[in-house]
């Protein structure tokens, strides 16, 4: 039957944001239809966004059953709790779940920022950031091991959290000229990136490479020319 107003899912997002895309990826993997609303947060935050996420004033925000949820990984857990049966993102076993949450947080809190700063950070900090980037990636390489995805045979919570590493980071490296995650140094992560972005559902969600490349170069310039 037709979905009523209450059941409809809305996502407020930003086309280029890996945080925003995490939510869309999970909804698509679970086959949950949703209405997407683009928020150009850099130009003007809409009244709708400010009302739905007054505390952080950021995207993504998910609206469902008249209520809004903010923070991408909180949203992903909500989707998982609400639509339990299709495409589970977290393992059944409590220990495995705790490890998935641990690694997702590690990516979110530590790795992402380090990778970004290694590409675009001030020259004075660059060496330290590159070193930290290597360390973070090494832990992830080890954790991934020979699994197809961090989640095992299917995409899971950690893979979604690490979407930036699978896709955005490669483009950021190309745009900045800083090479860190090479196939030689991180063969498993390299293979995993290809599996992830090659997935039929994921690839439909990812923002276009040329658009991201242009955005990065415009916002952060080219290190080679500095």
């Amino acid at each position, binding site marked *: 039957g037709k979905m009523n107003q209450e059941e409809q899912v809305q996502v407020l997002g930003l086309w280029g944001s890996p945080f925003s895309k995490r939510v869309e990826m999970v909804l698509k993997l679970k086959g949950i239809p949703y209405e997407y609303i683009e928020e150009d947060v850099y130009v003007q935050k809409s009244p709708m966004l400010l009302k739905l996420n007054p505390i952080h004033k950021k995207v993504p925000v998910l609206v469902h059953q008249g209520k809004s*949820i903010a*923070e991408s990984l*909180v949203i992903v*857990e909500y989707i998982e*709790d609400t639509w339990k049966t299709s495409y589970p993102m977290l393992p059944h076993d*409590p220990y495995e779940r*705790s490890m998935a949450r*641990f690694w997702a*947080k590690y990516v979110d809190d530590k790795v992402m920022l380090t990778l970004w700063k290694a590409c675009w950070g001030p020259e004075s900090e660059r060496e330290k950031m590159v070193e930290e980037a290597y360390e973070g990636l090494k832990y992830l390489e080890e954790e991934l091991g020979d699994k197809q995805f961090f989640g095992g045979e299917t995409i899971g919570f950690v893979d979604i959290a690490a979407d930036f590493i699978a896709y955005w980071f490669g483009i950021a490296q190309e745009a900045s000229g800083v090479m860190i995650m090479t196939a030689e140094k991180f063969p498993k992560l390299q293979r995993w990136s290809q599996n992830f972005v090659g997935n039929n559902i994921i690839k439909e969600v990812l923002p276009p490479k040329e658009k991201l490349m242009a955005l990065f170069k415009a916002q952060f310039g080219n290190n080679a020319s500095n």
Partner: protein
Amino acid sequence: MGEREEVKLLGTWYSPVVARAKIALRLKSVDYDYFEEDLFGSKSELLLKSNPVHKKVPVLIHNNKPILESLNIVEYIDETWNASGPSILPSHPHDRSQARFWSAFVDDKWFPTLIATTITKSENAKAKGMEEVGEWLLLLEDAFISISKGERFFGGEVIGFMDICLGSFLVILKAREKLKGENILDKSKTPSLCKWANEFLADDTVKNVVPEIDRVVKFMREFEAETQTRA
């Protein structure tokens, strides 16, 4: 009774996030062996082996498997010993998302800002930080009123996830107030949170588990004196 499951907790007496694990274990009536890590000395072999990435407490070791990060540990305890004691996380997905959202807010914004004000030597930065802490307490007051729906705790009649998350910081907060003569949790600004704080600290699962305020005051005083002489 089946064979006794091996539950170990690595912690320090001072750490509020270690207290979270202790409270959760107590809520579920789980027996465990506690190992005190040296606050300033070298880290034990077991800690380094169990948490090589962060090398931090708390670490819960259950049947030789290490569980890391305090809120993960609380969830793990909730899921593993789900048949005993009350549910720590709420059951409705939206309530769960609120618990996760606010606990992230406390851990990523509120508490780090509070700690920064205690460390900074700049009066300006301290004042600005304390202002933010105060503003955010008003948000937490609203959140408490909305989530508790008139009951004693965020979790309702019984302590839940959000109570454990924010409540674990109360001893440090109150010790700070005592040490500095400051009023951080202000009855005139956040009356509901003040009432909740007293309920939380008086609760059976909390009061014998968190460190005594005076012990923390003494420790803070000594630590401050130590860092002054080294500065």
